[in-house]
């Protein structure tokens, strides 16, 4: 018996009718065509399928889609704003933090959840967050460097934004 699922994915609302046993990863890949989320195992042990659900990194293969009914999901497709890549994405490119790229979406989404919580993580904190993410290409060190670089870029962006805000406030053009 199919059930109704209402989810917001990357800011877009979706109403679907699915079998209750359907996994979130299946909804994303098969129903919504968001194939940027990959699956590399059948035992919830690779974390390639990680997405962000209400700010938390979640393996989309180990959660039923109905468990996220009414909630907000962000996948790798939802990070870039228009043609501008997210600073995490740019940091992954600039640091050669992927090779085949198959596990990359999961690494990036876990990084997103980490940096949203902790703007300046240590190497150990990064490794703790990404420890379950299997990568067969990179040897991980370049991923860790990308995460630290992404944290710096996000901080720089934030500083710039607050500077702009200050200037606007000072010039009196801000909120009245």
């Amino acid at each position, binding site marked *: 018996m199919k059930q109704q699922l209402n989810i917001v994915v990357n800011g877009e609302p979706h109403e679907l009718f699915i079998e209750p046993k359907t996994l979130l990863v299946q909804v994303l890949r098969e129903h919504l065509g968001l194939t940027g989320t990959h699956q590399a195992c059948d035992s919830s042990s690779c974390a390639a399928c990680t997405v962000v659900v209400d700010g938390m990194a979640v393996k989309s293969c180990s959660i039923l889609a109905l468990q996220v009914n009414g909630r907000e999901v962000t996948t790798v497709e939802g990070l870039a704003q228009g043609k501008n890549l997210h600073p995490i994405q740019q940091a992954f490119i600039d640091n050669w933090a992927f090779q085949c790229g198959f596990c990359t979406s999961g690494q990036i989404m876990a990084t997103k959840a980490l940096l949203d919580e902790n703007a300046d993580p240590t190497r150990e904190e990064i490794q703790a967050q990404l420890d379950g993410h299997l990568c067969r290409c990179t040897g991980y060190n*370049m991923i860790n460097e990308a995460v630290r670089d992404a944290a710096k870029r996000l901080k720089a962006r934030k500083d710039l934004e607050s500077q702009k805000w200050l200037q606007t406030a000072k010039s009196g053009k801000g909120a009245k």
Partner: protein
Amino acid sequence: MKEFSIIGKPTPNVDGPAKVTGEAQYTIDMTLPHMLYGKLLRSPYPHAKILSIDTSEAEKLQGVKAVITGKDTPGGKWGLWRRFRELSDQQALATDKVRFIGDPVAAVAATSEEIAEKALDLIEVDYEPLPAVFDPIEAIKDDAPMVHEDFPSNINATRHIEWGDVDDAFAKADYVREDRFVLEAAHPCAMEVHSSLASYDKGTGRLTIWTSTGSPYFVQQNLAEALKMREGDIRVIKPHVGGHYGGKNSTMPDAVNAAILSMKTGRPVKVVFNRDEEFTTTEHRTAQHMALKLGMKKNGEIVAFEVKAMTNGGAYTGLGATTLYLTGTFITMPYKIPNYRYDGVRTYTNIVWGTSIRGFGAVPGKYCSETQLDRAAKDLGVDPLEIRRINAVAPGYTAPGQYTFESCGIQPCIEKMAVRVKEKWPAIEKDEGIGYCGFAYMSGGIFNWIDTPYAYSSAHIKVNWDGTVDLYSQAADVGQGHNTVAAMICAEELGIGIEDIRLHMGDTAHAYTDLGAWGSRETLMNGNAIKDAASQVKQKLIDIARLKLGENIAYDLVARNKRIFLELRPERGLSYYDLVKDAIRQNDGVPLTGTGHYTPHNKGMISPAYGMGIMAIKAKVDRETGHVTARDVLVVHDSGQIINPLGARGQVEGSIHMGLGYGLCEEMPMDQGMLLNPEFVDYKILRTRDMPEIEILDVPTYEPNGPFGAKEAAEATIAPTAPALANAVYQACGAEFFSNVLKPEKVLKAIRAQEAKNNAASQAKE
């Protein structure tokens, strides 16, 4: 050294934006309208006769569109050793008998994966189990069960290499030691499992297939044989590939059965293995037995070396026979070995077959030779780094009948290592040790067992009115970063920017042949082909520029920074973009084209060039638990002129990751041919917290056979990793290892054995 605009500069991956946004399409991500899902039914027996197969119930299931067994296939056999027909031993579905647990016997195409799986459960196969053989030494006994009845024995291939007078040299050696080893199998574990999507056009009788492969050319050739079709009727397209590492050279039952099912149904069919199938039925690094005999002078100079290898080949050939040969050659590098003999035997057994996994034969062999070298050094009282320096080759070294090192930076690498180690690790803690391992590896293989009549690599380019360049080649980016290297080489040769290059790679219909990504071949071989194609266009532009500039013919013109100008008077020149327009106008409106190719000639048996170097690992051993921690890795390598330092670093570090897994935790235990750990839960690959820091130092040389002096910077560093680690443990506590995978229980056992030996020695003294 020559100044480059692009070569040698850290360059972000040209596939980066696609790969970080989820836009990159892998085969597993693809669908086509009206597509069906294919699944394979696999043998539960390691060796059994197929008495009957009843598919009637499966065919009745709603949604099932085709059920096929061996008799429904075109019946062509295929393999990568096409030069020797008897080694073309793979088939789409087993007909008479199954040869390993997982050999496919039937295939289903259905409207959903779920229905296809249900249909598999409804197929009844009646087997008669046969005695099976799992060990290579058992397999060559006279009364062993035959894996292939039409083959004279279970000996799949043998390789003999010999130079010098080995017996005489051993007789005269000051020091001789013999060691025997057992090497474990390991799986490549690509994150994207084998996947294929086939679409057969009944109207034209032509097939298009998208597949996760390292070589579109191999797939095209093998499919032509399997399906008994003309190669020109088969178009193979390689989308982004989610990992290869040697495990995607052979054409596997996913591709062949997707094709056959598409031919039967007239609809596109996609076959994707699950992770269990990936572990249990796709190719792995071969388990093997090895015996080594080393003869030396008192000072540690090698005078004779004899190697015997017996590999547990498994049910089919793949590139396993090549791996057997390369075990016998890479084990000698990068050392002067005046007298050498190798005998390798690859056996057929009733397990899934082993092949050319990353490091291609170098990995098991080097583990044995370099751990043996450390023991010899200790016996002779020679420093482990010094013994490698004494024996390291010099530029121009030739192993008779086998290989020549043209560019060769091994000596400066060792010198640099000696200096850096002292700086980096001035003191080591208790129970820590530093282990060394020298290495060298090919920049693409010369051997041609696929028997291609085509150039080993080709590329063609088309330069458009606006100066953009379309670059076409079958060369395969499988994650190693070749697309970036290809664009860099093309742009450097034409003196333009990477943003001017448009890549059209990995499609057999668009491009001439390239044999694919294996043996670290793309940078040198495809790089040469691209450079050749680009230089042809460059020459046309230079000719036009020369006419327009009207300069003294003695002046050389160069293409750089999007201009063509006099090398000695850079202010005198013309814009690349203007010249392209002139050239096309002059050419009756035809875009500029260049077709380049590369085939090595008279460069020995193995490769035109070799990357090489030396690795050091600092490791700590816990004497109570046997736990080994790799703390720090230092690599000094000569990869010629590095094209992209970012990509090269990624390759070196990735190889070390896989090499540490081979040394510490990866194994494939089997019981009666059944793999016991076919999931990532049980098959341990190293995680981010397990990785040490890695420092990489370059010793650049100029390789005359490579594009812009480049050579291999990819697989070389996998082979030295596990032996350097084992040597570090040996240096730390004297524990000796005769097989890889330093699990705590094995390490503890070796430590206890060493302690017992020491006690006995000290008691004897008393």
